[in-house]
């Protein structure tokens, strides 16, 4: 069963109820997003007010995903459509899942090892994201600090670039804190976005 289809069916069903519940949703969302970026309206996900009038025709948003550059030393950003989700957590997961399964344009290579998968994703009240990965991300990783940096910062940058209310990303493996993914990059603490690895810094 495709979980995305499931989600849209869900959105369609909820659409009518949303009108009634919209005030309640506002309260809940503002509570969830305790620390939004100053000046921004409640959330960066534009779906909150949209579903009431929107057709359930699988809305999608443009997201920035990352791949390894031709020389294998940099991250290159690529715009790709991902399904629109109803909450930051779901949107984060949708983006990550798109990143994990994305086919890169020619000349670029994926930075996420084949077979890697997301086990879970949580957002704390501080807007820190915890990404729990299947242990395959470690067993299938080719090793090497360069490749490890690219893998880790693909995950970190994909989440923090697309969802600016999120602050930092901590990667867990198999539900636990891990020292590293392949022996180098420190995963014991949350990581911030890294623009130095980008092929063309912003």
């Amino acid at each position, binding site marked *: 069963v495709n979980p995305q289809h499931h989600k849209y069916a869900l959105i369609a069903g909820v659409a009518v109820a949303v009108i009634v519940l919209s005030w309640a949703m506002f309260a809940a969302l503002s509570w969830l997003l305790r620390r939004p970026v100053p000046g921004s309206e409640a959330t960066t996900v534009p779906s909150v007010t949209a579903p009431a009038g929107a057709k359930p025709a699988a809305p999608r948003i443009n997201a920035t995903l990352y791949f390894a550059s031709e020389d294998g030393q940099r991250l290159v950003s690529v715009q790709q459509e991902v399904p629109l989700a109803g909450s930051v957590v779901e949107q984060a997961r949708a983006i990550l899942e798109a990143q994990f399964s994305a086919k890169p344009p020619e000349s670029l290579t994926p930075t996420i090892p084949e077979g890697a998968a997301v086990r879970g994703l949580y957002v704390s009240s501080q807007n820190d994201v915890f990404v729990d990965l299947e242990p395959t991300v470690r067993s299938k990783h080719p090793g090497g600090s360069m*490749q490890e940096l690219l893998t880790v910062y693909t995950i970190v940058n994909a989440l923090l670039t697309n969802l600016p209310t999120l602050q930092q990303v901590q990667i867990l493996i198999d539900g636990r804190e891990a020292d590293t993914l392949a022996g*180098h990059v420190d995963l014991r603490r949350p990581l911030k976005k890294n623009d130095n690895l980008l092929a063309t810094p912003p």
Partner: protein
Amino acid sequence: MRRTHLASFVVTVLCLASIGTLPAQAPTTTLTLLSREGRRSLPTTAIGNQDYVSVDDLNAAFGTTAREDRLAGGLTITLRNRSALLTADQTVVQANGRLVSLLAPVLRRDGRWLVPVDFIPRALSLLLETRLDLRRSSRLLVMGDMRVPRVVVSIDAGVTNLSVIFEVTPSGDAKVSAPPGRLQVQFEADALELTLPPIPAQTFLLGLAQSETPGAVAIVTGPRYAQYRTSSSQTDAGSTRFVVDLLPATTTTTAPATATPAPDMRPSLNATPSTGLRTLVIDPGHGGDELGAQGPRGTLEKNVTLAVARRLRTLVETRLGLKVFLTREDDRTVPLDDRSAFANAHRADVFLSIHANAAVRPSLKGAEVYYLTVERADAEARKRADDTATAVPELGGGTRMIDLILWETAQARYLEQSSTLAGMIEQSLGTRLEMSPRAVRQAPFRVLVGANMPAALVEMGYLTNADQERQLTSAGYQDYVVQAILEALIKFRDLLDTTAQ
């Protein structure tokens, strides 16, 4: 389907929770409103975990008027022909025809109306038709197009100089002028959101303060200061790093250190991290179950690193007469933190981790040298850690002082030296081997985090490249690598010796 139920349950609970009971009021503090008209303070009251501001105070500050509708239990705030509708105990307000949700409900207490502070940027800004930027951490409210960059200042105290580092977000230029007794750093700004660090004990810098001139910081210089030097660079995500180096009267290497007028007053416990190079700890990367990278012909990184580490030990012991220890002598699994702990326990003056790299592109080749990236929070923690000296009982009676350093910030205090060391190794490797395009890099590598001494990680080459795999297993190439590291260690030792005088 289970998720739907859960979601609606959560929504209901949150909804009830947000409208529910609120704890008693806490003491009053203020927000500072910065506008073209100047500064003005706005009293706030903490209720629950939210800061509230009274509508009366908002009216006084922004020229709005309020009218209460007792029957409907609502309040209308008006400015000219625009209005906002508030309802007691509701988190949603209507402002200028738009629905806006707030982090906490509007309250009516003892005849006064209170709104959570995020009402100001979210709703009031719609009435005023101007931007109101609420900066919670500094309790600033910036109105209109005022340029109020965030400036975080840090201090890097060296032996022969002191750097005052300004991280300016968003990016902007700064100019330094030198009125007597101080330096004035003027930013392109109307005001600053300024974070100042504590001043360490030394004689270059006596103090830092927000200047009376808007958008400027004053550096009060000390007796050892004679001249300054500035540099600026763009860091990640739109910040400028502006550095003012305070230098003593003589900076040339020919001048003896005794020429400096004032003695270095830094306490001996946290003074110069190293007074020379006597002990080296080499860390052969990976080992045991951790194979590391693999070459196309099956060469394992863990074996190459051990071979090179042994070679390096022999050379450094015989040529430099240093004590050299390896974090592993054979093929075994050693956790990363144990490796730097080993170096700390052996009081190493330098810690070098030896690795070979891997890439998905087989064409990628070249050596690289890394030192640790430290985030700002760690650098601040490091300042605190610097001062933690603790007395511990000694065997046979009495006590001795030890200085306690947080594991996570140990390396942060040696970043400058580690960067120098990494640069020297890179330069030296570059004369003998092919380097990768950007050879010195910073990265958050776990093995370096806890090292309480200058530390670097050397990637000797890419095992995934067939040519380099052959090279990395050859005695000739391994000798090039260790020769280059030896040369860099000699340079680094000389540097430590001159700065220690």
